[in-house]
């Protein structure tokens, strides 16, 4: 797989992570090496079912009844900017 600086910049943009040019250069070389090594994954075949979780069978469901959470206050208290219990966020769409 061909990795170049533009692709690294694109990945950074999608990831919402700003990189310095020095980081872009470094990651370009590293990602090329990593993808090259990791491409061996194709050898295991692409048949069969995907495995998302190793815990088949466990994870029963809770009873559906309301319960009072105690966690929110501690989270709200630490918002960088808030109005009452609401988080103030900047405009994200023009």
């Amino acid at each position: 797989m061909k990795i170049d600086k533009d692709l690294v910049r694109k990945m950074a943009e999608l990831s919402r992570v700003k990189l310095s040019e020095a980081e872009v250069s470094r990651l370009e070389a590293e990602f090329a090496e990593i993808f090259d090594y990791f491409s061996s994954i194709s050898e295991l075949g692409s048949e069969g079912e995907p495995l998302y979780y190793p815990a088949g069978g466990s994870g029963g469901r809770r009873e559906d009844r309301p319960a009072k959470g105690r966690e929110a206050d501690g989270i709200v208290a630490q918002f960088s900017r808030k109005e009452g219990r609401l988080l103030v966020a900047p405009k994200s769409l023009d």
Partner: protein
Amino acid sequence: MDIHTQRISALLEKIERENDRIGAFIEVYAEEAIAKAELLDAKVRRGGKPGRLAGKAVAIKNNIAYQGKRLTCGSKMLWDYLAPYHAAVVERIEAEDGIILGSVNLDEFACGSDTTKSAIMRTKNPLDTDYVPGGSSGGSAASVAAGFADISLGSDTGGSIRCPASFCGVVGMKPTYGLVSRYGLSDMAMSLDQIGPLATKVADARLMLSVIAGADGRDQTTASSPKNVALDSRGKPSIAIAKEFLEGADPRIADCFHSLAGKLADRGYAISEISIPELKHAIPIYYLTVFAEFSSAMQKYDGLRYGKHERELENFMEGVSELRGEKFGLEVKRRILLGTFITTKEYQDAWYGKTLKARAVLKKAMESALSRHDLLLGPTMGTLPWKIGEKMTDPLELYLADILTVPANLAGIPAGSVPFGRIGRFRPGMQVLGSRFSDAKVLALMGEIERLDSL
């Protein structure tokens, strides 16, 4: 002063004197620890029944929430973030009178295998302070190896408990996925993460696991009826050695391992050599899974929630990108970028989709080996600890060091590391793996290896 208060005070003084040299603790909960010890002493004086962890001094990795205390995850992003509630494991420890001394260091968001990726401090190996303690639970291993705590908690996504246990010469246990609640654990890769104990003795690790194991409605992956965990398993298990475990291992570690295998055979254990060829794909499967899950887990760090970031985010997207670029370390950025990329619409079939299917193949291969043999045995790490400052430049080289520990996480099975033999100052770990929920069997063989090591 009564006995528990006395002992906890002595440990807190020791930490005060020696923590600068080792760099294990990020924050010491001195007041809380003394208060708990005094309560326990008062309970004992009244004739109350002490809990199962009565008086045990415990250190917790700083990605596990302790209400009101800093939950840094080793990152500048969470420098001043306070945990809003206790993790399930903290509740369970305190309910059994365990005394939590404080939080210990880790690689940033548990991404690393030597704790040098922490943005908070450097942790050194108590066996030789020029060397790394392993990671990512480096502070957890160092705190018990240095005698600061009896037991510590780490988290293990691909070896983060077992690697530092092996490097610091202590015991570490990654439980079956679904045995211990992850409620209050800051996730690295949610289908792989599991909290587990580190200690100087197998008995302490077993005791801690019996306390923290069990179903929790707040973590839907916990099993409703974990079997066998606190029970002693009987009889001699059959043991298989996968030859892939020894490929590329340091010859001195291989020597220790062969000496152990010989001693077990002398004592009547049936030992077979097998091959699991799928193991050679474990590193790509593991890291591609981690990249995908980790990049998703990190989306919540947007500068608005989780830690105060006093800056105007006028242009939201650009502001968030700048903040994340500034606060995250390079390894964290590397994983976020790779994970975002392999889950994009264009590339997910080629990378993430294949990874999920390959994981199923590897899990099946491990299960098949464990259906013919009770336990698998090998070294925990193929290498001895490296010097602080070494192996800092090539990420792939560091990823490859995890080859022996990641299969257990991919398959969701229990795996523990116990020291055996001596190489200079170091005591390499030997790894025992079992089928899902055979944690007691794994710990029983670890106990046997501990006895053989002391002979």
